[in-house]
């Protein structure tokens, strides 16, 4: 807990939280990192394999092969989510399965499935970007800021 948050606590609360923390199992960070590396690595290797496949057997070059690769990864992820398998990979792999594009596809699919009972418009439509929405909003926003910074630097004669 951050020190500013801790300041708002009474001494009794602080004392209890120390007492409790000594008795809580910690997140196994080292193991989680290794697992994230393995799962993330496997997903990226599959992606790399797909890219090579599209370059070798279809009329794609290194730049254009990205689109079909991502599309196939998303499709695989959506199928795994729909079969109820992706959450098991996510619990085991942690960040390794959350960070790649497959994690993004999973959040949209699972939120859609969860809220299907509230109808297609307000349920699926209104909730499918529950987790993915903020990622898009802040992703686009930070890209915009970076682009402006780049424009300013180039117009000032840099780069």
């Amino acid at each position, binding site marked *: 807990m951050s020190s500013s948050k801790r300041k708002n606590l009474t001494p009794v609360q602080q004392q209890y939280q120390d*007492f409790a923390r000594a008795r809580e*199992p910690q997140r196994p960070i080292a193991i989680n990192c290794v697992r994230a590396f393995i799962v993330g690595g496997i997903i990226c290797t599959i992606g790399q394999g797909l890219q090579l496949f599209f370059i070798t057997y279809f009329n794609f070059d290194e730049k254009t092969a990205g689109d079909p690769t991502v599309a196939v990864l998303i499709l695989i992820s959506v199928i795994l*989510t729909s079969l109820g398998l992706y959450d098991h990979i996510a*619990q085991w792999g942690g960040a390794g399965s*959350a960070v790649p594009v497959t994690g993004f596809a999973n*959040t949209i699919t*699972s939120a859609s499935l969860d809220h299907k009972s509230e109808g297609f418009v307000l349920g699926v439509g209104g909730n499918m970007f529950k*987790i993915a929405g903020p990622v898009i909003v802040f992703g686009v926003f930070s890209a915009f800021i970076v682009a402006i910074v780049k424009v300013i630097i180039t117009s000032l004669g840099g780069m």
Partner: protein
Amino acid sequence: MLQGHQTWVFQSKPTIIGSAAIGGPFEAQGNLADDFDLLHGDIWLGQDSYEQAEKKLLEQACETAIKKAGLKQEDVQFFLSGDLINQIIPSSFTARTLAVPYLGIYGACSSSMEGLALASLIIDSGFAQNALVGTSSHNAAAEKQYRYPTEYGAQKPPTAQWTVTGAGAAVIAKQGKGPRVAASTIGRVVDMGLSDPFNMGAAMAPAAVDTIEAHFRDLNICPSYYDLITTGDLGKVGHRIAGDLLTKHGLSIPVEKLTDCGILMYKEDQPVFAGASGCACVATTTFGHLLNRMRRGELNRILVIATGALLSPMSYQQKETIPCVAHAVAIEM
């Protein structure tokens, strides 16, 4: 009759004449499978939504409890119920089906013992001959409402708990055969400043300890009076903290006597992190497993302390801490 600060002693000792526990597929693989009246293989229960499935669980629990009590639906005088869904719809919709006078209650996972205490109060004071209490929870419905489910791709920490899919109900009456409600301690809300919804055990443990201490202080008895003292859904983490906290406060309860419904529910190899939680955790364990053991004569006096975390998804996002409450009910054979 009020004794001490916050404990009700029921002179007439209202009797639990019938009780039932209904569970889902995960509970069927658990430790207490034999004590459920009905176990479902599908979390949807053939319904269109998780919320409707939860209502179905509660309806079945009520129906079974009424039947086991030897009553008919129209004989029930009052129905008290609570659950975790917004505006307690499974409870209210079940009350619609039952069509009996109804009081909806909310104490998060402490609802079952809150209901049992209030029902006993109604019977003991002579305002009714019988009353039905019920509570339910549904893993997927609770995850959807409260948390950031693993299905969305987030990894849960080892302190997280698994919400029980199930429902428990009991019929309390002035006369009859069965375990009897002797006393009840109504808890204060305790907030130790914890705000992590993935660590409910640590947040709720102080509330449980506060109520346990109040119970023994008010009644002037010691833990050896009971054969079993069980907290609601603290899980492994909260159970350990509560035990150590009680020892620290000078109220030692022997290890074999103090347990937790969240630990009893599932088997060691089930992937439930720190243990079970949810309204149905303490409800199904008490109204199924524990009352069955009492009826078999294995236990004579038990104290059940149901713990509830009174947070909402909004309060969590607004960075509020988690206030918790615990209500204790003493049941004797």
